[in-house]
């Protein structure tokens, strides 16, 4: 008798099981990085901003495919003089909790961004001297020094609700986002998925797909498994080794577009080191067979780069070209510079930051070994690598860059300007490249108001940096996505790799 009851109970449980499973979302996207926090100012990596762009809006936005700056929570903006920026706000917008959006929220947001406890956007927040709100729908920013790219960053400074943010404790604030965005937050199961639902009151009109699930899967092979098993409609960050395999799969479509990020080798010109001699820098550049790297390591999913900024960036110079691949020439240059037997060189880089970063470092090491340098490889997790970079431990390393502001001015200040702690220059100039003329040109360009004149000035800065070999650009990454054909989605990838769900249509 006892046994019978047990068996029937078990049967009941098992038949009830499938009904407990949740209904499948309208859209499931598998991405390669998990969100770190639901505080929109906690992290300025593309990975985190991508999630935030669904829950929050910035004053401006950059819709796919080009990423041109267009209105969002602000309807108009203007640089009134070198230091003053005026934004006119949109009326009738509501936060997900029902609070109306107005100038007080904008002021609150940018003031909160100055607090290191809440924000990693200190750079842009600290450049603001004062915020005035003459009425509920006008905000006037005055910056500390000329910041020509101020408005260019407004698509990623997400606006939070003043009233609720002040009252919530930080645990809640960091896990449950309340914004004005196209999607409302439903659930975040850490390590598994994030669920969101369409915001029916969205100011652009409710988005088409009602329920959306984003699944972060960091492991490359498993991410592919998700789409192969039809557990995801779209896959962001298709692992390079599997590209050929996906091309052969009839049910999956491969979508790729040039990415903004440029991967480059950074090197300095510190006196007393071999790198002080431009012939040595040239030899290193000529030794690297970038075409082979693109073909083998990147499976063709990259474009060789002649400069660091990408086409969409102000300061891009289409006339720049790469040095030719010429190992013999490189050897000759080394000899000329007085290093016929080479010298010891360490190649540093992260092994968990960029697409195939470790493999690229290994390949560069091989090329340099072939022109007679004594190479040591020193790749490590990004958390350690970037710290060592900041303390100038490495003279030659791999790094990638794309500037969220679409402006080469800020990149130049951080990457090639002489390291100057007091002025906050050269933060990522780990190899300590220094060229006073270039420094002056960079600083001068920031004060130019006219956009075209500024572009010319930045192009000149860019050209000097390339001709003086302040860095050796390798390639622009290519972003590769996969989509399940059966889902019939209209999906246009963005230049910044964000998954902005409102742009995905059925």
């Amino acid at each position, binding site marked *: 008798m006892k046994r019978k009851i047990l068996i029937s109970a078990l049967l009941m449980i098992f038949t009830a099981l499938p009904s407990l499973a949740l209904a499948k979302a309208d859209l499931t996207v598998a991405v390669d990085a998990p969100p770190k926090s639901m505080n929109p100012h906690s992290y300025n990596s593309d990975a985190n901003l991508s999630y935030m762009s669904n829950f929050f809006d910035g004053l401006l936005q950059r819709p796919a495919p080009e990423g041109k700056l267009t209105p969002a929570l602000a309807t108009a903006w203007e640089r009134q003089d070198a230091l003053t920026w005026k934004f006119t706000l949109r009326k009738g917008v509501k936060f997900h909790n029902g609070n109306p959006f107005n100038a007080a929220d904008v002021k609150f947001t940018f003031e909160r961004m100055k607090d290191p406890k809440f924000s990693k956007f200190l750079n842009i927040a600290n450049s603001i001297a004062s915020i005035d709100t003459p009425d509920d729908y006008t905000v006037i920013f005055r910056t500390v020094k000329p910041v020509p790219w101020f408005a260019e960053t407004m698509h990623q400074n997400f606006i939070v609700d003043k009233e609720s943010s002040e009252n919530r404790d930080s645990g809640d604030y960091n896990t449950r986002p309340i914004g004005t965005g196209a999607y409302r937050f439903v659930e975040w199961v850490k390590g598994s998925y994030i669920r969101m639902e369409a915001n029916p009151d969205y100011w652009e009109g409710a988005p088409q797909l009602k329920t959306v699930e984003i699944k972060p899967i960091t492991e490359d*092979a498993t991410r592919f498994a998700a789409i192969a098993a039809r557990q995801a409609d779209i896959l962001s960050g298709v692992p390079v080794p*599997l590209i050929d395999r996906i091309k052969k799969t009839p049910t999956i479509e491969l979508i790729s577009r040039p990415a903004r990020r440029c991967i480059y080798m950074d090197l300095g010109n510190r006196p007393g080191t071999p790198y002080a001699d431009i012939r040595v820098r040239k030899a290193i550049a000529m030794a690297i067979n970038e075409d*082979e790297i693109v073909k*083998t*390591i990147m499976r063709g999913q990259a474009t060789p780069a002649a400069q660091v900024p990408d086409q969409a960036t102000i300061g891009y110079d289409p006339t720049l070209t790469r040095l030719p691949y010429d190992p013999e020439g490189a050897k000759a240059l080394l000899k000329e510079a007085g290093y016929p037997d080479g010298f010891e060189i360490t190649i540093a880089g992260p092994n968990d930051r960029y697409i195939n970063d470790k493999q690229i470092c*290994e390949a560069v090491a*091989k090329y340099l070994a*072939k022109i007679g340098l004594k*190479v040591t490889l020193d790749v*490590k997790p990004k958390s350690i690598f970037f710290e060592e970079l900041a303390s100038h431990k490495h003279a030659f390393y791999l790094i990638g860059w794309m500037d969220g502001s679409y402006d080469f001015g800020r990149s130049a200040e951080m990457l090639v300007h002489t390291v100057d702690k007091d002025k906050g220059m050269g933060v990522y100039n780990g190899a300590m490249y220094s060229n006073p003329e270039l420094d002056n040109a960079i600083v001068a360009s920031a004060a130019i108001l006219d956009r075209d004149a500024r572009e010319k000035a930045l192009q000149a800065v860019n050209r000097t940096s390339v001709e003086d070999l302040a860095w050796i650009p390798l390639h622009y990454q290519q972003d590769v996505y996969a989509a399940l054909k059966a889902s019939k989605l209209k999906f246009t990838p963005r230049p910044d790799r964000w998954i902005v769900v409102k742009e995905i249509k059925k």
Partner: protein
Amino acid sequence: MRRFTENAFVYSFLRDPSAIFGAVLMLAFAFCALFAPAIAPMNPYDLASIDLGNFLLTPAWMDGGSLSFPLGTDDQGRGILSTMLYGMRTSLLVGFTVVTVSSVLGILLGMVGGYYGGLLDAFIMRCADTVFSFSTTLLAILLLGVFESRNIWTVVFAICIAGWVKYARTIRGSVLEVKENAYVTAARASGARDARILFRHILPNVLPPVFVLMAVDLAVVIMLESTLSFLGVGVPITEPSLGMMISIGKNYIYAGMWWMVLFPGMTLILLVVAINLFSDWLRDEMNPKLARNT
């Protein structure tokens, strides 16, 4: 020769096919690892000799394979066979170093604790209990996790931190038994110094079980090293390691490139099985209470 085969130890060994198999395999692996530079078709960590153009080749007998890379290549154009041979060097180097260091450490601490007793003994044994309960694997992962830079020697260090415990416990137990024996008391009565008693009279009598432990430990340490390297907290990527090879190959299993996981995986398993077969025999031999009959 006759006397040699009549020795009970050798006799039982020669009658046990799996022990012979294990020992032969072990020697073969050790030989390959030791002479890897001579045997391997290439040195996969000599940067100048690798050609990226040879990346992801299939094993020689399949379409697209090449005879210069009998087992295929990885994503950097390194031959799988060569990398495996060099990786085995790392495995065995780490294995033997850890076993040597932790057994010596464990023997010393165990003997001192067991012989002198008292507060010192209590302290050593409390430490041993604590470390033991954390387990070698967990301690090594956590310790390497908080280290900033890692190399073969940090791996050895992290494993040894907990590795000495089993030796110390075993030795201490035996010392407690042996030290009451007549010959020890006699030596003490004749005024021999402690060090002499410990090393001349006690050590030889407590050593045999340690050999079994060492054999078992070698297999465990080799697995642990590959596990740590697989997780990314073991030897750095610039050093060859079977665990690292498998972790690279794992990214390619969906692309159908099974050889990058299967060959190093099988090598690792065979190596460990060989050691375990041998140590099984050794244990039964040294522990006659449990005569082996399977």
